């Protein structure tokens, strides 16, 4: 039985009881088979297919990219199911969790749609304890969905299924905006959080939370892109009708998207683009970098964002691309320059971020391209004479890539200092690598290099890192290290005027 110990719930325990295939609904936490065993999973969506009901599951402590539609057979109904509370199941992922706890939004014209058959039906079918918060008005999400059956089913399911409180993940945010309008006083915390969230979206290129729960469900199943078939990881706001398609086509050069194969064929017969539409600012035998201005190449950059959103959870497309520059890495062949990865960068970052979003396309991942992207971002910072840092939050893959890049470079410098028996300060390390001092500090700590020994702060390079470093050195003797050659960068920091800033870049 799924215990409350694993999930990060707050004090209010969830109602537990046995579910039937019919009562199993969005917001439930059930035990679902994944990778050979049952795991706790939150049901984010339900759909009817020819082969029966399917449930979109987010597995506890698994990244969202591993979310999937599972058939009923994989749901272990022999174990009790947790029914959704007024509490959010993972309240850390959503804002305003506590605020809704005891002070649910007062009923409003929009809010009171759902009757309360659930308590009875839960009781009758599962024989469980009645829901403690049944009296609260339920917010219902009845967004007319152009999305056809699938989402319609989701909505219907929400309406019809008993057991849920006013807090289905599906409608959390509708409720939020409603309560924001209606009871700002009752929920100041929530109000604040939401504003803060929007402000975050305004300021940065990434986001911490997505405000709508629909976006928790992947909407594109497969993308044909260049030579590859890609399987998206996350939601991306392509036209809503695309969610019904089995396959979407994206032109690998101009990044235009097509659900209709004929349209795509026609597009390909006309499209003349063969590399990203900007100036090449770096070239070596291996890769090229192009600089693209979001304002001048709005269509292309929007397309790039839509594409990358499928693989970046924390990216937001809330705002337009104008205030960003996009640095796009490509490989060349006789067909053109193929998109490998990119990072975006604010034209003017108040927080000194040198990267907003960064992505290596899935077909090029685990091949060392990420390191080149990261290195390039720091080379640009060096030219600017600034210390840079990537915008937070980082994704899991982002953190690993950055950690790896930072560690490798720090270890190299530290070992050189060690050989020369020289002392080294954090600021010095930061300056050498154009990293911020706090990134240096966090890396040193994470790798247990920063110690306080005999009344003195010291940096100790662990043996395993030395070994790794030497192994790499050995490897590069035979196979030259792929690295950005700073001299080949033809780039001057772009200058933007006050009027650029005022008129939206």
């Amino acid at each position, binding site marked *: 039985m799924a215990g409350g110990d694993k999930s990060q719930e707050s004090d209010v325990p969830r109602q537990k009881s046995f579910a039937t295939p019919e009562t199993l609904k969005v917001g439930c936490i059930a035990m679902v088979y994944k990778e050979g065993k049952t795991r706790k999973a939150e049901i984010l969506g339900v759909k009817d297919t020819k082969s029966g009901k399917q449930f979109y599951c987010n597995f506890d402590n698994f*990244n969202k990219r591993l979310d999937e539609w599972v058939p009923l057979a994989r749901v272990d109904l022999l174990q009790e199911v947790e029914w959704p509370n007024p509490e959010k199941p993972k309240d850390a992922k959503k804002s305003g969790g506590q605020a809704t706890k005891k002070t649910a939004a007062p009923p409003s014209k929009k809010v009171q749609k759902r009757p309360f058959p659930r308590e009875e039906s839960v009781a009758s079918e599962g024989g469980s304890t009645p829901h403690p918060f049944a009296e609260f008005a339920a917010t219902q999400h009845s967004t007319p969905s152009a999305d056809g059956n699938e989402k319609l089913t989701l909505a219907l399911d929400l309406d019809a299924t008993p057991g849920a409180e006013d807090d289905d993940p599906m409608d959390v945010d509708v409720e939020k905006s409603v309560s924001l309008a209606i009871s700002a006083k009752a929920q100041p915390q929530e109000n604040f959080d939401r504003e803060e969230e929007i402000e975050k979206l305004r300021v940065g290129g990434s986001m911490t939370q997505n405000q709508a729960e629909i976006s928790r469900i992947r909407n594109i199943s497969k993308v044909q892109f*260049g030579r590859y078939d890609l399987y998206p990881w996350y939601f991306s706001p392509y036209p809503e009708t695309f969610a019904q398609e089995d396959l979407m086509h994206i032109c690998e050069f101009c990044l235009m998207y097509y659900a*209709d194969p004929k349209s795509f064929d026609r597009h390909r017969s006309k499209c003349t683009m063969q590399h990203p539409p900007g100036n090449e600012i770096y070239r070596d035998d291996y890769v090229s970098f192009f600089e693209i201005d979001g304002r001048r190449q709005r269509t292309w950059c929007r397309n790039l964002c839509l594409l990358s959103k499928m693989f970046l959870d924390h990216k937001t497309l*809330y705002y337009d691309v104008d205030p960003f520059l996009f640095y796009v890495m490509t490989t060349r062949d006789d067909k053109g320059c193929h998109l490998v990865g990119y990072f975006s960068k604010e034209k003017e970052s108040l927080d000194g971020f040198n990267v907003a979003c960064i992505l290596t*396309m899935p077909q090029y991942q685990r091949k060392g391209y990420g390191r080149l992207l990261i290195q390039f971002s720091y080379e640009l910072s060096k030219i600017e004479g600034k210390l840079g840092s990537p915008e937070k939050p980082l994704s899991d893959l982002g953190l690993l890539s950055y950690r790896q890049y930072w560690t490798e470079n720090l270890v190299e410098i530290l070992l050189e200092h060690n050989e020369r028996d020289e002392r080294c300060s954090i600021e*010095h390390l*930061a300056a050498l690598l154009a990293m911020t001092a706090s990134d240096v500090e966090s890396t040193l700590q*994470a790798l247990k290099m920063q110690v306080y020994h005999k009344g*003195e702060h010291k940096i100790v390079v662990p043996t395993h890192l030395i070994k790794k470093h030497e192994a790499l050195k050995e490897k590069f003797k035979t196979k030259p290290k792929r690295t950005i050659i700073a001299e080949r960068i033809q780039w001057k920091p772009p200058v933007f005027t006050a009027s650029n800033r005022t008129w939206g870049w």
Partner: protein
Amino acid sequence: MKRAQQPARVARVKKLSRSQGQQILREEEIDSREYEDLFQQQVNKITSGVEAAEETEIHLQAALAAATSGANEGEIPAPPADETPGNHYNILYQRSFDNPVSYIRFSNTVEDCTGCGYDMTSEDDVFLKEYNKKKSGGRYSEDFFEKIMAMFEETAKTHAPYASVDNTVVPFDTMKSVLVDRVRGEVGEFAKAFYDHWVIRQQLQPALKYETSKDNEDADPYVCFRRRDGRQTRKTRARDNASVDRLKKLRREMEDARGMVLATHQREIMKRDLLRTERMIFGQRAILKDTKVRLSIKSNDDDLINQKPQKRPRQSDVPARAPVVGRLPNGSIGPIAPELPQLSDIQTEKENALQRIIETKTQLHRKWNEDHIDLTREPLSPVEDRGPEPSFRPATAQYRYLTPPSSVNSEAFEQNALIQKEAEGTINRYSSPPVEIELQAQRAYRKRVGRLGRLWIDRRNMAPTPLNDNDVIMTDRWKYDQEDDDEQDVYPMDPYDITALRYRSTLPTRSERSAARPSPNDRLTAAALQPPAT
């Protein structure tokens, strides 16, 4: 630096400064047991930059632990990408790419590179094939079809920009008229068929959701690429303050403007009252005169005389009243004989006499200066030519009121407005080069070397110009000149610079010039033959 709170028995950890040089050790250089101990103390969490809720993810934790411990690299599983089976790629991507030798520079947009903006769908394909089958004669190509459809779309966008909201469908006649303009030749029967097809298809075009300022769309994850409105773009306080200041200033200016309108209104009322009073006085005086005549009262007509100074300056206003100011780089002479409006005729007479004296003196001075070449370092230039010729306009910076002069009191007038007298050129000039009317158009500058090798570029004073000359040009030329009492402007310049020399060499010689432009006036020609002071 974040440090764990050390247990009490351990000496307090000194704060680590980021600029402090630290010793760098390899792990083997430190006693291993000691090394282990070092980390027992570390409790606090390291900021990873990953969102808290995701930090606990098992794959990430495994990977991080692997990196820290030196175990094999942990990998985070991710849905992989596959190569598309088959040879579709080479069919779809047929163009080959020649990599240029130099770095690519490119600014075409997606729209520039994709030709016709409409890509026909499978449904369009079916429709077109059907249509072509039914049709006798030539077939319509896919390109042609797309062109027409693109045109429909474009026309719809201009004629019904809010179609997505109000479902306006642009009528066929509109489309047809546009079509006739675009497609040369006959707009065949295809137009209607294509149009009907388009009307059906139009509703089905998949499109991104943009903001439409409807409620609740903040929460719609499909709505993307919102405009950042200017104020919210950046959260700088300075910007906010600047906006506030601008608003305040605007408000102030509005209030000032309002005040001015009120004042103007007041002024006009007063003017009206003044006129009424004057008229009344006039009438009263007429009565008085009549009465005097009737009663044969003989006295001096003082009670009638008041009328004169009131009226006469009004007629001779323009020439008499305007203050005349010489250009006085040395500040030796102030405004010359300003005539105040309330001066009597006699005073005007006196003033005119004075003017004449000054004029003769100036003429004398000029004569005396003729053929005089000043080679001193700081030459005292002869008086500028100021003939009585009305056709020449002495050059002074001018500030004219936009409002009619009558509404400005004479004092303000003297202070602010240097209105040119048109009839009298009464400009005296000192310390400026001799006048060479001939050169008025070309030679506007002179180079002198002053004390200590300082280089002076003198700008020629405005030569008299026919009044009908373009006024704007003249004013513009004097834009930066100003009354400066003791110093001429110094233009810093490299004394060894040959730019000026080169420039002069490009100018036509004097003889060429005089040949090309006959002088309007003999006297002036004579002056022109003077070598320029250098």
